[in-house]
């Protein structure tokens, strides 16, 4: 199987500190890969480096055989790479429905064409489906900024899936989400994985969530990959346990 996303020897240093220190990983089509590791182990920096939000110091990223190193988030989104954010990143003054439409409309038609398109840019129906799926019907018309942290988190995730991306990088999707919703969220992600066929890379601290969602898990410590493999294996790894306990 040819890898879908391939990250080679990714490095990002701030002065003498190597936040990401030579990480190599690959993700296949439709695969869900989990990334775990203690706080400050460089997971989010790795994401930001892959996604063009910050400039990596070294290394390369390939997506579908194309070198995408250092591409801007805009260019990546055009190639079908989406992401969610660790901290809340919704359009606070737009309604939930507009948030979802805004995440998809730019992939419909041309820019001048969209000026004359219907106000919902033809994404309204899809947005309503997504709202149903994430059970946000009762707040669909409220400004996203007025909602609870957990709800905004769900919107954030729904937004990432609106344009049916081929690859999604999820940064701590469960953080701050009501525990009762975590199972539901996992089911949703599995469903989306099946229906849209995209690949996921998930950063998460919730072990239970990762174990049940990801067939393949990577553990990062101090900017390096410490262990890799099926969740049960990684979990049993002595070094991983030490890294977590020592933290």
């Amino acid at each position: 199987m040819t890898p879908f996303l391939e990250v080679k020897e990714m490095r990002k240093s701030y002065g003498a500190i190597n936040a990401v220190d030579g990480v190599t990983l690959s993700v296949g089509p439709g695969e869900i890969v989990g990334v775990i590791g203690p706080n400050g182990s460089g997971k989010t920096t790795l994401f930001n480096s892959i996604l063009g939000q910050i400039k990596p110091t070294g290394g390369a990223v390939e997506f579908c055989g194309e070198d995408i190193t250092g591409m801007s988030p805009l260019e990546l989104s055009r190639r079908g790479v989406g992401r969610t954010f660790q901290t809340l990143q919704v359009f606070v003054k737009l309604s939930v429905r507009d948030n979802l439409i805004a995440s998809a409309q730019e992939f419909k038609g041309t820019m001048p064409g969209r000026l004359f398109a219907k106000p919902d840019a033809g994404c309204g129906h899809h947005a309503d489906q997504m709202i149903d799926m994430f059970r946000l019907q009762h707040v669909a018309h409220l400004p996203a900024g007025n909602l609870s942290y957990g709800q905004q988190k769900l919107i954030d995730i729904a937004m990432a899936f609106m344009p049916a991306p081929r690859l999604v990088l999820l940064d701590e999707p469960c953080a701050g989400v009501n525990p009762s919703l975590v199972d539901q969220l996992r089911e949703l992600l599995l469903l989306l994985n099946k229906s849209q066929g995209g690949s996921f890379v998930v950063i998460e601290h919730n072990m239970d969530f990762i174990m049940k969602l990801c067939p393949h898990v990577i553990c990062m410590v101090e900017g390096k990959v410490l262990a890799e493999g099926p969740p049960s294996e990684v979990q049993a790894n002595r070094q991983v346990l030490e890294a977590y306990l020592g933290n």
Partner: protein
Amino acid sequence: MVDLVQLIISGTATGAIYALCALGFTLLWQASGTINFAQGEFVMVPAFLMLFFINTAGLPMWVAFLLTCLVAMVLLGYTFKRAMVDPLIRHGVIPLVIATLGLSIGVKQLVKAGVTAQAQPFNSIFPDGLLSLGALKVSYMDVGTLVLAGLIVISLQTFLNRTVTGRAMQAVAQNTDSARVLGINVARMVLYTFLINAVLSVVAALLVTPTYLAKFDMGESIGLKAFYAAIIGGFNQTRGALLGGVLVGVLENLTGAYISPAYKEGVALMLFLVVIIFKPEGLLGKTEERKV
């Protein structure tokens, strides 16, 4: 050749005053993320305060100056910080910028309506006359301005680099969070910055008002020049403000004399625009990476 040197010297003297204002401007920006659009009015107010102390209270110049420094520190330093910057900065830069614009208009009109709309004379602390250095003739006022502004800048730099408090202030300017971790009293250091800005403004007023005359709108020009100077030199660099100020002053003089007095401001303005577009961190500034 003598003309050129003379133009450069008097331009540097004017630029030194711009630099004082620009210095305060960058200090505020570094320490608290404040872009102060009322910086020019911060020069105008002390000018009127000094006039009040001299003419109405009948005090000698130096007493008036010291008293004005004190009042400015309370009014333009402490009160400005507590009443405007502290409650606004959490909303982000834009509301604060808008508020300082409001402050600029408010203070200007207050002086115009409540004090006087007309220009008032203001005596120089330096004598009239020229200092001859061979063919070169430099006015005492320019020499005095350069010496005084230079002293202020050098002592400020010494304070920032050589004293514990100064270094703490620099640490706050570079990274507020790490400074806090290091146990520095961030709030206090930021307050010091505001107080220093107030004093710098008073000195600038002392030097600039004899030529500008004390008038409610005298700050418009100097505020704008300080703004150019800060951007040209580098918004996040103290040395940048100095370079920017002197550059703006000298360029103005040279343009006025050799190109056209009508475009006196033009060359400095073009430099300002070029810097914004091609070197936004300023001539001496460091690039800041975008935060996610």
